[in-house]
């Protein structure tokens, strides 16, 4: 069994150190059976997704009717600022210094010294992507209701529906959006699909589609959703996506891509070029559901093959990046270079996308494209392993790799550190075991 020690991120004020957790009685307005009766929260039901992947209408001839509530501008930011002014966050993220690292890629570095304070390292098992839910561990039914912003559902209608004060219906297990009390940027929230169903961190078609809905509803390319699987730096085994607002393109989004295949439903799958983490880009498709379902198929395949991965839902849900990774596994095996390890930066979805949250001032001040590249390259699968994984994915979604076509103008160049290409003979991220799903997640 492989495990690593790391400081878990505190996403809720009710997330005590696990050992002490049990002593907390209720009376704290949580989502458990004890408190949920009578609880109310705004409900936002988004409009049904049209064929938005490709069927986007020309705007000039068509002024869409104003929704009753602007999802991102009024609801997310307004409720978030409200919690901010109520002092629910562990620190003021807007006081954290941030900069664009000079260079071609535009990695964004943030100095965040507060995020990992006051937590002791916990042991995490990293060799099992699927683990069953453990109600004794911290999960989102334990958060206080004040940390919830609103209920979110995929609408049946063509119109947005908003109810400012809707009872939480425990029977129907609402999906909720909650704050992350350790934000890495303004508006950092968690989307927790069907929170009361206590789903483990595991992609299913319906939940990913809900996340894509949320990206589409935000209608802003700078509001993205992300996902970390277990073994790829998820710290809580309760299904959740993260989202925040950063008004810059991520280096991952800027990377050139090379088309690999197009599925029968029209989803184009490309491989990123000249990016430190080998990744796939899914876009297009006859509908957004096609796109989402194709990515879900791919994720289910990775999960079944015990391959940790991250997802970035970008460009209002039009582009979805899938990044299989092996950093934690390498870390557990002692194969990550000490300088990289020393920074204590965990390459989860945001770091892999190019937003580096640094814990030490010296790392922030000395941040360079080369350092960022070196760190991310450690997370990448080797070239061979990435090919193997792609074959698994293509088989799972019913496509074999028919042809390769280059797109965009490609400038061949060396990676700044050159480290990606040199390690091509390792086989990291391989399926280790497909153990039984009943083993527990976090070791105390």
């Amino acid at each position, binding site marked *: 069994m492989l495990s690593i020690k790391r400081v878990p991120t505190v996403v809720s004020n009710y997330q005590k150190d696990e050992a002490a957790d049990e002593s907390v009685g209720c009376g704290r307005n949580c989502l458990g059976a004890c408190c949920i009766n009578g609880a109310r929260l*705004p409900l936002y039901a988004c409009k049904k997704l049209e064929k938005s992947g*490709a*069927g*986007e209408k*020309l*705007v*000039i*001839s068509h*002024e869409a009717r104003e929704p*009753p*509530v602007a999802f991102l*501008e*009024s*609801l997310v*930011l*307004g*409720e*978030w*600022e*409200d919690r*901010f*002014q109520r002092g629910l966050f562990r620190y*003021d993220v*807007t*006081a*954290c*210094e*941030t*900069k*664009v690292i*000079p260079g071609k890629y*535009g990695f*964004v570095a943030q100095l965040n010294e507060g995020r990992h304070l006051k937590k002791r390292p916990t042991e995490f098992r990293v060799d099992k992507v699927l683990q069953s839910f453990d109600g004794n561990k911290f999960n989102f039914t334990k958060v206080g209701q004040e940390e919830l912003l609103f209920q979110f559902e995929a609408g049946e209608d063509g119109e947005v529906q*908003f109810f*400012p004060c809707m009872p939480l219906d425990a029977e129907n297990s609402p999906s909720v959006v909650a704050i992350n009390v350790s934000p890495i940027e*303004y*508006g950092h929230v968690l989307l927790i699909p069907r929170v009361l169903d206590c789903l483990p961190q595991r992609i299913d078609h319906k939940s990913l589609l809900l996340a894509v809905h949320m990206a589409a509803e935000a209608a802003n*390319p*700078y509001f993205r959703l992300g996902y970390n699987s277990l073994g790829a730096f998820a710290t809580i085994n309760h299904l959740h996506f993260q989202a925040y*607002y*950063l*008004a*810059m*393109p991520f280096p991952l*989004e*800027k990377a050139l891509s090379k*088309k690999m295949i*197009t599925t029968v439903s029209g989803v*184009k799958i490309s491989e990123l070029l000249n990016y430190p983490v080998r990744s796939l880009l899914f*876009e297009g498709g006859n509908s957004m559901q096609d796109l989402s379902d194709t990515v879900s198929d791919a994720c289910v395949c990775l999960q079944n093959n015990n391959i940790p991965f991250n997802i970035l839902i970008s*460009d209002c849900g*039009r*582009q979805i990046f899938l990044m299989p990774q092996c950093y934690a596994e390498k870390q557990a095996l002692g194969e990550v270079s000490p300088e990289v390890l020393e920074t204590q930066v965990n390459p989860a979805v945001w770091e892999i996308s190019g937003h580096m949250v640094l814990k030490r001032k010296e790392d922030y001040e000395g941040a360079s494209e080369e350092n960022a590249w070196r760190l991310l390259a450690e997370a990448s699968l080797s070239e061979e392993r990435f090919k193997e994984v792609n074959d698994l994915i293509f088989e799972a979604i019913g496509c074999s790799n*028919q042809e*390769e*076509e*280059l*797109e*965009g103008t*490609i400038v061949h160049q060396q990676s700044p550190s050159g480290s990606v290409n040199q390690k091509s003979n390792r086989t990291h991220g391989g399926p280790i075991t497909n153990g039984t799903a009943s083993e527990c997640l976090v070791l105390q």
Partner: protein
Amino acid sequence: MSITKSSESVEESFNARYSLWIKEALDELPHSFTITDPFISGHPIVFASPGFLKMTGYSREEVIGRNGRAFQGPKTNRRSIMEIREAIREERPIQVNLLNYRKSGSPFWMLFHMIPVFEKMDGKVIQFVAVQVPISGQEHHHRKMRNGSGLSGDGSDRSELVYGSCRREVCLGAFVRKDRALPVECDEQGLENWEHCEASESEKLKAVEAVNNVLSILARYSELSGGLVCGKRYCLRGADCLSSSLVISLGRIKQSFVLTNPCLPDMPIVYASDAFLTLTGYKRQEVLGQNCRFLTGVDTDSSVLYEMKECILKGQSCTVQILNYSNRKDKSTFWNLLHISPVRNASGKTAYFVGVQVEASCRNAESEEVRPETRQLSVVGAVRVAVRSSFMVFSILGNMSGRCHI
């Protein structure tokens, strides 16, 4: 498209920059181009050349006041859109191949060349000029060959087809493929390549020439009106001058708010939203540079003013109810539910204070809406994001000032 301004106010803003007959002079140019104004909410087109109207099939009235995004459609490459967005944010020129749509709905390829127009005196971007040169597709063949030979080996066979499809689609409009029964894979192929049409060197030169012609007319007519503009940044923006990217972001916020700069003497207003001007009845040039106290009058409670001052000094946020005096036609007073918060820049330092005004009588508890308090706070949130990210751009500009020249 966010807010569409009435054409008159858009026209007005354009005319104010230049001397008489500027439009007639621009109309003389044969090129297809548009001029946009980032300082108007929604970053709308303020001028469209006859060539542009002819190319897109729209009338001038349909185009003025619109954002350039209106001409993009489902097959417009997302990456190109991102590149243009970035160039605007970083206030630098960009040349990119772009698929746009005519009024009829038919798409066409063009070379999009956009440059910022600077005010010579203070280095501030005042407009963007975007030239559109139609792409004939002649070069596509060569490009495919180049890539094909290097990387896939069989590129030359396919390129013939691709080259054909690029031109054919442009002629036929939508994705109607009338011609012979191509195998499905080829069809797919054609569409994929259709996403990439390359401009020729002569088309690129044409775009540069057009941009220079437009610029020289703008320079000539701005000189006569006293505020010279140019295509180069001669000096760094002054501290009291907001970047166009920040102004574009702020322009999307529809509620009434102002930004004041606590680092300048007497904490003047440096940005006022359209809704603020409507609420208070003042014109923008009457409020910029002023301290907010012009809104108070004899009956304004001085203890509230004191409370606000204390909060500002401590760098805290506060919500107060204060009697304000408007400059509306009836010179009426109104109860302002005012929220003030400090706003930090990317280095974590307080750069501005935002003041969000809600007229107390207008607070309706409509059941379909977000609470008014939340709406008010959402403005604070949107301003925080806008300010934080615009300062991140600023740090790029500092590092690559050389790239700002055309």
